């Protein structure tokens, strides 16, 4: 029997076991919405702005490892989704985004709500498709999910003109798909693995630098086994937090611009750097010329283009990190040798010395609420097991520094693109994926207002998210840079005319609590957690002069940190 394009769309999503579809209706996708309405398997979450649909799908993907799926209309629906698509692209998040398009016959005519979605999204997707014949629809969707979820994951856009959703074709969902031009390498090169193992055995001051690729590949167990067997120190990028237990003694904390003293110093003085699923981002390396001056570098990554892009490496290994780590571990276990124990012990002594600097210490007796204390309390109250999303700025760094993630997928933040407005919608996706877990948004009064309308979505679907607003009345990270590098000229970093967030939360049907005193932080947090089925907006009024330390200024090396 022939099905309409809209029915085929539904059948394909069912085949892909799509649980949630995040979207917003409009003219070009009415047929799709009509078909959605006539089934119950796929639950549609109606957001209040298409940017939030993409962030929510992204949050769902990060919290589950499964692809996030989005449906938006043509024109402004598609352009609003672009920020979320670019966010997912920069962090390699698997996502499939369906954009409606005007009738095939109208394309190119500047029709109502027409935009070149393929052209606009091209630089920020892993791939995109326009479906020009309903007979190609099912196969295109199959390809999209395959591309989005394999290799280095990423968002894929499918643009569907309205007539295609009405046209009819036989439904035939391909079981398997192969694309002749797309064959991601999974298995690492045996010779390279051997060379890497040899370097590991000869190292005296090694460090492991792991990144988001470990989380994306679900390779936490392999990483942990590898690191603990070798007794090597490990640091992580912001994107990689949670892949290795942060409370373990071998973990040095995050590295980079706001990384710990011990992590950055160990990077600077190591003789072997083992990069695993990380991409030598400028926020990690500091000044490239000063980066790891004495180190040989091994780099394991699924994406060959990430290797030797910013920093030339000695042993590149292309492959899935889990797979390569397993192979390396196997080889290490059959070789009778181990790295020089005395050298490693001396290296650890040196690292312990750096640790004693206690670079993350802050004033715990202050009269004003310290933002670090709020994150620390969140960690204590949730026993380190919450799903934490963030927006972008100072609060994001404090969350990364003070919430110690022992498990992957719980830390959900926009690392590459640095998208303000990400936190709340991403939390919606995480909460839908894990209805019984605590999901907290660590945010600031600037960021939260960028997708504040989603408080309405949260009410509609009963999402009991806990919003931890670090309200210092400033765009804190901008203010910090202006204080350090622009002679305290605070251009536009002060947020005047802030709303009363308590009333705002209440007007959306949620609970709002304002906290002004340090001694009230914990009780407010506990009260919020007790309200298991309610969204609680915790508005913490924090010390506006607080800065994020350590900090590596632009142009400096990892050993040139500003400490408190």
């Amino acid at each position, binding site marked *: 029997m022939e099905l309409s394009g809209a029915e085929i769309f539904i059948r394909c999503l069912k085949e892909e076991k799509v649980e949630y579809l995040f979207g917003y209706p409009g003219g070009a996708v009415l047929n799709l919405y009509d078909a959605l309405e006539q089934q119950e398997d796929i639950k549609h979450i109606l957001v209040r702005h298409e940017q939030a649909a993409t962030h929510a799908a992204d949050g769902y993907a990060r919290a589950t490892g499964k692809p996030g799926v989005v449906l938006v209309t043509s024109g402004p629906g598609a352009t609003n989704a672009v920020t979320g698509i670019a966010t997912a692209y920069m962090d390699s998040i698997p996502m499939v985004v369906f954009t409606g398009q005007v009738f095939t016959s109208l394309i190119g005519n500047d029709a109502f709500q027409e935009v070149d979605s*393929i*052209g606009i999204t*091209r*630089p920020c997707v*892993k*791939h995109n498709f*326009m479906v020009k014949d309903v007979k190609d629809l099912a196969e295109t969707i199959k390809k999209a999910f395959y*591309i989005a979820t394999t290799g280095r994951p990423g968002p894929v856009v499918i643009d569907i003109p309205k007539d295609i959703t009405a046209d009819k074709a036989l439904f035939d969902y391909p079981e398997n798909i192969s*694309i*002749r*031009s*797309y064959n991601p390498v999974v298995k690492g090169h045996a010779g390279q693995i051997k060379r890497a193992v040899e370097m590991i055995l000869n190292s005296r001051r090694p460090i492991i630098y792991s990144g988001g690729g470990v989380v994306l590949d679900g390779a936490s167990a392999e990483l942990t086994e590898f690191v603990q067997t070798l007794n090597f120190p490990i640091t992580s990028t912001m994107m990689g937090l949670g892949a290795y237990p942060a409370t373990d003694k071998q973990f040095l904390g995050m590295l980079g611009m706001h990384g710990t003293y011990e992590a950055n110093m160990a990077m600077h003085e190591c003789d072997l750097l083992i990069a695993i699923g990380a991409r030598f981002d400028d926020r990690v390396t500091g000044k490239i010329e000063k980066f790891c001056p004495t180190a040989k570098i091994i780099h394991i990554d699924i*994406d*060959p*283009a990430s*290797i*030797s*892009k910013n920093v*030339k490496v000695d042993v590149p290994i292309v492959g899935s990190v889990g797979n390569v780590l397993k192979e390396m571990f196997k080889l290490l276990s059959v070789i009778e040798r181990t790295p020089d124990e005395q050298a490693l012990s001396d290296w650890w002594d040196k690292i312990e010395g750096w640790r004693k600097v206690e670079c993350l210490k802050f004033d715990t007796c202050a009269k004003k609420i310290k933002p670090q204390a709020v994150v620390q309390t969140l960690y204590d109250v949730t026993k380190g097991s919450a799903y934490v999303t963030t927006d972008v700025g100072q609060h994001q760094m404090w969350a990364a520094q003070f919430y110690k993630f022992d498990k992957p997928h719980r830390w959900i933040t926009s690392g590459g693109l640095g998208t303000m407005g990400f936190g709340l919608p991403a939390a919606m996706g995480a909460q839908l994926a894990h209805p019984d877990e605590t999901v907290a948004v660590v945010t600031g009064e600037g960021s939260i207002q960028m997708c504040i309308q989603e408080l309405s979505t949260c009410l509609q679907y009963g999402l009991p998210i806990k919003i931890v607003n670090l309200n210092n009345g400033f765009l804190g990270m901008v203010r910090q840079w202006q204080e350090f590098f622009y002679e305290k000229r605070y251009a536009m970093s002060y947020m005047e005319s802030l709303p009363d967030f308590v009333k705002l939360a209440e007007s959306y049907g949620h609970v709002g609590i304002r906290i002004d005193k340090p001694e009230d932080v914990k009780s407010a947090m506990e009260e919020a957690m007790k309200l298991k089925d309610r969204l609680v907006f915790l508005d913490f009024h924090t010390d506006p002069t607080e800065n994020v330390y350590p900090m590596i200024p632009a142009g400096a090396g990892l050993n040139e940190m500003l400490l408190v």
Partner: protein
Amino acid sequence: MMRHIISILMENEAGALSRVSGLFSARGYNIESLTVAPTETPSLSRLTLVTRGSDEIIEQIIKQLNKLIDVVKLSDLTEGAHIERELMLIKVKAVGGDARDEVKRLSEIFRGHILDVTKTSYTMELTGTAEKLDAFIEAMQDGTILEVARTGVSGVMRGEKGLQLNN
């Protein structure tokens, strides 16, 4: 900044070319010339482009191109022995016996063909390496060139091996 000729087999689909050219502009790589047409396999196009860059940049360009889903296979022809050709149509002013003779002579030296003749102009076809075509333009009297249309460089590897689907 070495000159490289990169030849790409890619899906003969709408948008494939813009993915390649978009990649170059987005990442700040330069393209000196670019030429594209279908191959003997109708589903495949062959795109050849000339670019310049350090070894690191060329390595990145090749990796990034390989990442594009529409790119099936590619090769940096300048890595080995190869043949490079470009076609140029050039129209020059040719008035008066001496000038007309000179243009004709030069065309012969460069093994060009004269395709169109009027009382005041010659239009010639020349093929060769980009360098040879540059030399011909250089050899024309100042101010006499009316129009130049070049195809951009195309090329293949020498010998039996080449850029094919199954090897």
